[in-house]
C-alpha cells in the first residue's frame, strides 16, 4: 500500500501541511511506515487548479491513500474517481499521522471542504 502525506519537508519527520493542493511535498510511505519516496508538488504555485494537478500527480504515481489537512472539491473529484482513500484533519508530523493511520484512528473523508483560494492577487480581475 502506498500512502501519500502532504508535507512541508522531504522526510518523514517533516510537519504535515494543511492544504492538499498547495503543499510543498508529498512524502510517500508504505503501511508499515517505511519511507518509499518523496514527490515535489510542482503545482504549488499554479494560479488555478493546483489541487487537480496534485491529484493527477498522485494518481499517476499510483497511491492508495492520502493523509492531509483538507482537500478542496475540485481535487476530491479525480481522487475519489480513482478510488483513492482520503483522510483529512491530519496534523503533526508525517510519522505521527502515519502512526494514527496504522491504529485506525483517522476518519475517511465523506465530503469536500471549501475551495481554497488560489494565488490571485486581487479578488476581482484574476488572470
Amino acid at each position, binding site marked *: 500500500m502506498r500512502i501519500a502525506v502532504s508535507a512541508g519537508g522531504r522526510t518523514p519527520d517533516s510537519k504535515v501541511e494543511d492544504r492538499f493542493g498547495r503543499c510543498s511535498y508529498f512524502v510517500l510511505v508504505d503501511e508499515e511506515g517505511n519511507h518509499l519516496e518523496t514527490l515535489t508538488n510542482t503545482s504549488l504555485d499554479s494560479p488555478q487548479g493546483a489541487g487537480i494537478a496534485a491529484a493527477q500527480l498522485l494518481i499517476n504515481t499510483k497511491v492508495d491513500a492520502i493523509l492531509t489537512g483538507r482537500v478542496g472539491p475540485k481535487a476530491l473529484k479525480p481522487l475519489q*474517481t480513482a478510488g483513492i482513500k482520503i483522510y483529512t484533519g491530519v496534523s503533526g508530523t508525517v510519522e505521527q499521522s502515519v502512526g494514527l493511520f496504522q491504529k485506525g484512528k483517522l476518519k475517511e473523508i465523506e465530503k469536500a471542504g471549501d475551495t481554497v483560494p488560489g494565488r490571485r492577487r486581487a479578488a476581482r480581475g484574476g488572470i
Partner: protein
Amino acid sequence: MEKGVITVASGKGGTGKTTIACCLALSAQQPVQFLDCDVEEPNAHIFLKPDWNASEAVSLRVPEVDYSKCTFCGKCADICMFNALAVVPGQVLTFPELCHSCGGCWALCPEKAIRSVPREIGVIEKGNARDISFIRGKLKVGTATSPPLIKAVKGTIQRESLAILDAPPGTSCPVVETMEESDFILLVTEPTVMGLNDLSLALEVVRLLNIPCGVVINRCNDVVSKVEKFCRENSIPVVAKIPVNRDIAKAYATGIPPVKANPELKETFTAILNHIERVTTGERTCCH
C-alpha cells in the same frame, strides 16, 4: 473628435471611470459608440439609459472527450497549463470553469479523441441612447475569466466612428484586454493616497502597451498637489480636473451624469475630447 478608440481606465475602483466615460459620450458632437467593458459588473446603462434592442450569447470552446477513441494516455492533462483536465483510469474529468479555451488539448490529442463544445460565458447586449450606440458585456455568474467576453464586446467596435470604452478597475488581464488597441487611454484618479498609488500601477500597464494617455483628477479638492506632482514627474498631461461638488454627487446618486446635472461641465469634456484628438492625430506629441 470623429473617430478613434478611447479607453477610460484607472487602477483604483470607484474613482469615476464610468461617470467620466458617460460624460465624454454625452459631450461628443457626433454619433458615438459606448462599450461597457466592465463585464463583471457593468453599470454605465444606469447613467446613459439605453433602450435595449439586441442580445447575443458569447461562448468559449471547451473540451469534450470521445471515449470510443480515448486511450487515457494523459497527454491532455499533462499539457493543460490551466489544470482543467484530469485523467484517471477509465475516465477523463474536465473542469470547464478552469478552461481558457487555448485549444491545446484538442489540437495535441494523439487519438483525436477530444472535440470542442461551446460553453456560454456571458452575453453582449446592445441598445441606443439618442446618438449613443450602447454595447455592454455581461459575464455569466460563476464564470471566472472575463477577457474572452471583453474581446467579443470589442469586436463590435466600428473603426470609422468614435468609440468610448469603460474599463474594469485594476491592472490585471481584463484591463489589459480592454486597453489593447486603443488610441488613447484616459486614466481617472482621485486625490487620495490609494488613488495615486493605483494610478502609478495603471500607468505602468499603459507604458507597457505604449499607448498615449492623460489623467483626469476627479473629485478635485485642495490636496491634488501630489497627484499633479506625480503627473509632472512622469510627463503625463492632466487633461481635466473635476471639482468635488455636492450637487454632482446628489445627481449621480439618482442616475444623472454630471454633464446633465451641471451643463457647464460639458465644456470640460469637450476640451478633453479635443485634447485627445490633437494627440491621436499627431498634432501634439504624446505623454511619452
